[in-house]
Every structure is written in C-alpha cells, then in structure tokens.
C-alpha cells in the first residue's frame, strides 16, 4: 500500500518530515488509500484515490466512469428527438424533471415553439418540487456523512410525499418522462393543486424543524464549519455552479440570470453563503444554501399554483419534430447547478449530436482542490457537500 507517488511540491503540505513536539524529526510516509467504488459515502460508484500523510490529505484523485451509459451516443441513435427524453431522466435520477426541462427547452428553442402559459407554470411547479426532493436527498445524506442518521429519515419521508404528487400526475415516481417537446404528457389531475398547496403548508414548518435538528446543531456545526473551504475565485475558475458556487458567496442563479420558463414573473431570490458559522464557502455554507433554497422553492411553488392559468397542455406539441440544421445551447438551473444541452441538428429527425454539460461532473473536479491539506475524516463531508450524482457525472 505504501507505494510512493511524486507530486508537485506546492501541493504537498508535509514533505515527508515533520518535527515532533520534542524537536525530533519524524519521517513520515505517504500512503495511498482507495475509497469506493462501493463505499456508502461516495454517493454512488465513485472511486477516490487518496494520498495521505498520516491523517492529512495530500491529494485526492477521483476516478469516474463506472456508470457510463453512452448517453450522448444513444441520443444520436434514437429514431426521433422525443425518444431522448427518457434517457435524459436517467442522467440525474434524483432530479429527473430538471434534466428533462433543459433538454426540452433546447429542442423547443431550436423549433421556435411558443409553449402555452399553463405548460410553463406547470413546469416551474414540477421543477421546484423536484428541486426540493433532490435537496432533501442531498441534505439528508449529508447528515449521514456527518454522523446524523435521523434527519435522513425525515428527509426521505418528505421526499416520498413529493414523489406521490409526481406519481399522481404522470405515473412514475422517479423517472418521469413528463415534459414533452412543446407540452406535457398529462395535464395535472384535478386534485393536484390542493394537494400541492397542502404539501407546501406542511413542508414550511418541516424546514424549520430540520434546521433545528441538523443545521444549527452544535455538533454538526463544529463538524462542518471551516471544513472544505472553496474560495470564490477557485469556484469561478473551476466553473462550479449551483449551490457549490452560491455557497462560496457568488450570486449567480440561471433562473434569474438567464431566465427561462416563467421564473421572471415570480418573486424569489437566490440564496448565497455568507460564512455565518465559519469561512465563506465552507461545507456548512453549502448546506445552508440548500436548506434556504428549499424555502425559496416553496415560495415559488405557492406563487405558481396561485397564478396557474387554464389551457391545453398538449396544444403546442408538434406533429413532426424536425428542426432546421443548426445548433443550440440551452441551460437550466438544476439542483446541482447549470445543466446545459448542446444540440446540433442536420435537419433530419434525429439529433446529429447531443452534448450534456453535467454540473455534477464539473463540481466534482474541484474536490481535490478543496480537500488538500484537510483531514481524511473530513473528506467524506467534503465529498458529501459537493452533492454528486454519479449518473450525471458519468453520463
């Protein structure tokens, strides 16, 4: 296990020799440890090769690709644009609606379709419900990483309620195939609006409860504050997005800065980390950004439900999807950050090329940067706070 590895010296925090408290020189050795691919805290099949010097992390090398399913090649081999949607779902299985949203938006912009107002509102409601569901998994599993088991169960309980809303609407609990190009597969069932409102009223006090239980818990704060600090400039240089970026105090949210759907008609604001418990951009900041985003999502859902216009959700679905030759890049804010689809069309019925810009992949790339010099016990927390979904990392 103790095979040595040469690293650029600026990365090595302890170059092999440290002084003991009595003034003796102690020789240390670097060791390589494998974490994953089957490890509960890597949140999927991710392998981390960790170079440690004692307890200090010298380097982390993520190895990905265990869940590669050729999404991009698959998309080229479908018989039409519509068929790619179920595969988009499977990129980020924790936030399938948001993936569909991005893809559907790209194709609609290519075809220059005006989508009915009702569809846009329903899409916003669904996307925000999904954002809550996804953040619940993120903060729940993050609690487990920090050693708190109960919040995880609470999170899954509430997520289950959201999944029931989805099941009622489109028939699936995880991979929906709900957003179609130009419309939706089903209209909302009649009892949906009431149930969703009921959920919102139920969920608001739950967030507070969750915060009391986990976020402001003394033990949790001590464990997470000042750990895995991601400075603003590093976050921007690595093209991080989503709660990763906002946790570092950068006020950037595509829902506001590159508006799509009807987000510009709704009052809400992006939440950023302010370093309340430690340094700006630490693990706790990323956690609190997710918690506060859930509150914002509830606000958005309530406003969208109140403003929901009537209409036919399938009116704008085109008979034949055959965009003119050209290319497009459309992006949306998913729970993990900026998800973009770059599509090239050659004028035929199938996409010539589909490229997905996966936020989880980009966010993961900053992991070595923020864990160097930290303790090995904190690595689990840092990896948890990045909130990766391996389906999206590997595509």
């Amino acid at each position: 296990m103790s095979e040595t590895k040469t690293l650029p010296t600026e990365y090595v925090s302890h170059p092999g020799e440290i002084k003991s408290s009595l003034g003796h020189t102690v020789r240390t050795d670097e060791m390589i440890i494998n974490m994953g691919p089957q490890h509960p805290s890597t949140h999927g099949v991710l392998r981390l090769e960790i170079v440690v010097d004692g307890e200090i992390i010298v380097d982390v090398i993520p190895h990905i690709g265990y869940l590669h399913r050729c999404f991009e090649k698959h998309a080229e081999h479908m018989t039409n644009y519509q068929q790619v949607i179920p595969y988009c779902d499977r990129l980020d299985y924790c936030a399938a609606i948001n993936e569909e949203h991005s893809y559907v938006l790209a194709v609609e912009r290519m075809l220059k379709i005006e989508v009915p107002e009702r569809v846009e509102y329903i899409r916003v409601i669904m996307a925000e419900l999904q954002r809550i569901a996804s953040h619940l998994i993120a903060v729940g599993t993050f609690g487990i990483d920090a050693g708190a088991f109960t919040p995880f169960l609470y999170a899954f309980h509430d997520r289950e309620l959201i999944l029931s809303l989805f099941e009622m609407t489109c028939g699936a609990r995880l991979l929906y195939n709900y957003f179609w190009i130009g419309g939706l597969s089903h209209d909302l069932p009649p009892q949906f609006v009431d149930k969703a409102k009921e959920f919102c009223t139920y969920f608001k006090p739950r967030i507070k409860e969750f915060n009391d239980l986990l976020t402001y818990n003394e033990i949790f704060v001590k464990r997470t504050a000042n750990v895995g600090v991601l400075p603003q400039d590093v976050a921007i240089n690595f093209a991080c997005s989503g709660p990763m970026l906002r946790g570092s105090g950068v006020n950037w949210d595509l829902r506001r800065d590159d508006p799509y759907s009807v987000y510009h008609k709704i009052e809400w604001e992006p939440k950023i980390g302010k370093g309340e418990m430690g340094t700006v951009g630490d693990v706790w900041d990323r956690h609190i950004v997710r918690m506060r985003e859930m509150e914002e999502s509830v606000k958005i859902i309530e406003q969208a439900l109140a403003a929901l216009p009537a209409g036919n959700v399938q009116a704008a679905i085109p008979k034949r999807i055959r965009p003119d030759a050209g290319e497009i890049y459309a992006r949306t804010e998913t729970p993990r950050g900026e998800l973009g689809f770059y599509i090239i069309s050659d004028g035929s019925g199938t996409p010539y090329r589909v490229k997905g810009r996966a936020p989880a992949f980009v966010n993961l790339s900053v992991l070595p940067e923020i864990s160097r010099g930290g303790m090995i016990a904190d690595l689990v927390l840092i990896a948890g706070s990045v909130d990766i979904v391996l389906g999206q990392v590997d595509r």
Partner: protein
Amino acid sequence: MGSTGKIIRKKDLSIWQKSYIPEIVKGLRQTIAEMFKPKFTIQYPEERFKPQPSFRGRPVLVQENEVERCVACGLCSRVCPALAIEVQASETPLEKERYPIKFEINMVRCIFCGFCEEVCPEEAIVMSNEYELVFSSQEEAVFGKDKLLKTTEELKDRLEFLRQNR
C-alpha cells in the same frame, strides 16, 4: 485549503457545552414527539404498495372478448426507445384482419417510459399496475403473449384513467 478554522479547546467550553446535553435533549424531544405520529412505512411483503391508476407499471396487452386488441401495426415497436418490443404480424379472418402472431417485450430492456401506450392507435398496449418483476435469467425476462395478455376487466382502472386523460 481544507480546515483552516480556529482550534476549539475543551477548556474554553462551558460545562453545558462540554456535556452536549442541551443538544442531545433538543434532538431527543423531536424524536420522541415523532414517535407518537402515525407510521408512514409499509411492511413490504405483507403489506403492499397500492399504485394509483396513473401508475406506469409493466406494459401489457389488452385482451377483449378472448382476442387481443392489437392489430400488429408495429408502431409501438418503432417508438420504443429501448428497442424492447418485437412484433410479427399475420392475417386473421376476424374484422381487424391482422393480428400479432408473435408479440414479445423484453422486460430487461423496457424502461417503463409509456411511449408504446401513447402511440398505440387501438389502445391495445397499456401500462398495468404491476411493479414486481423478478427473473432468474435473460430468457425468462422476454415476455411473450401468454404473459402479456390481460383482460379489460383486470385493466379497468387504467383504461378509465386513459379515457379521462387523452
């Protein structure tokens, strides 16, 4: 980078903080309150999850008056993104003229997207409410007509749902 914060010494903490008792009590109060709320979990094999009519379980063929509705047009097999369906048409003296002599869905490939149900002109293939699928080999997972056919009686809920939502 990494942990850069100030070091917390045990001696700086008050006796309350040192014991962590307030935090533990805070957490326990929540837990105990939760104990008296109704249970949310299902004891799975004994109790079963009842899907709503909108649920998309495994696709099945609709059987009406002892014959399948399917006219073997092959649309479902064309639209299936996972290439799970195989249809072979043949002629029949019945009014519909064509019927599938072989209709197979490979349940290992199927991704439960529901496109086949959406595209079928005869409402002959629908998503049932069955979600338990267990196989011990690849061959077993290929469902032929014998396993796919379901009477309209059995599929009443779903057909009713489709009537309202099309």
